[in-house]
């Protein structure tokens, strides 16, 4: 094909011009990007932090009563109540078993006759 001496633009020239224009597209100025981003942040709803998981539902009301450190104090209350319960519910033969061991250790009987491990019968009878 011969294109010598043409002065008019044809469609192929236009396509070349378009391609050049696409390649030379000017970047967005930083000041504009900053304004756009500022608008974006201003219109954005920042999500609220997720609530902490509640470990002790029974004593959650304690945490609600105390503004700071409520969770720790409710845990402490649970521990205290558990200790109290263990104290009241201790099996009665416990002391008696200890007494028998102590007596055996201080008696004059030969050591091979001393029963260091008390029988479990007393425990089983407690129920």
């Amino acid at each position, binding site marked *: 094909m011969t294109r010598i001496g043409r002065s*008019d633009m044809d469609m192929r020239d236009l396509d070349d011009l378009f391609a050049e*224009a696409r390649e030379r597209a000017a970047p967005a100025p930083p000041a504009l990007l900053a304004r*756009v981003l500022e608008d*974006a942040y201003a219109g954005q709803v920042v999500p609220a932090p997720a609530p902490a998981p509640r470990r002790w539902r029974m004593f959650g009301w304690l945490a609600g009563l105390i503004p700071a450190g409520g969770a720790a104090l409710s845990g402490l209350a649970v521990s205290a109540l558990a200790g109290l319960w263990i104290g009241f519910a201790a099996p009665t033969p416990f002391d008696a078993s200890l007494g028998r061991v102590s007596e055996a250790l201080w008696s004059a009987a030969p050591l091979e006759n001393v029963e260091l491990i008390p029988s479990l019968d007393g425990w089983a009878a407690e129920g």
Partner: protein
Amino acid sequence: MPLDDLSHLPDADLLARYAAGDRGAARTLTLRFTPKVLGYAGRLLGDRAEAEDIAQEAMLRLWRIAPDWRAGEAQVATWLYRVVTNLVTDRLRARRRRPAAELDAVAEPADGAPGVLAGLIARDRMAALDAALAQLPERQRQAVVLRHLEGLANPEIAAIMEIGVEAVESLTARGKRALAALLSGQRAELGYQDEEAGP
């Protein structure tokens, strides 16, 4: 790739993240779309400052619609191009309603459009293209810019301009012919060299 790099995510996913408060998504969307809408508005308006206003306004509308965006109903880019098209149309109408005194302040072309073009063409091909684009009818200019400078497919242009695909084809064809006519006789000044004669 950094953990917070969201540039690989689709537009709709980024918009959903933005609506949920993700600032990284806001940054990625800003960098992805602001240059596009600015370039498109600039080609239609021929005025950089006005184009920046339009770009900022279009992006602002994107932020506002984000919580109500329905993924799958429209492409984010298509929606933005349509917003820019409408904003520019309004801006051009306002220009036409300017008082005569303001219009008088605009410098008159010395020898009509071809003479103005000749001066620009000698200096810068891109300026010549912009000047020629500015002389196209508004709808032809929109179609040509979207097709040949933004590189969109005809169906997408049809969605943006809210017309049929055949109408888009007609507008782009007529627009290209008009551009060729506006730049006629300026081929050498545009820097195009004649090819060697073939065998």
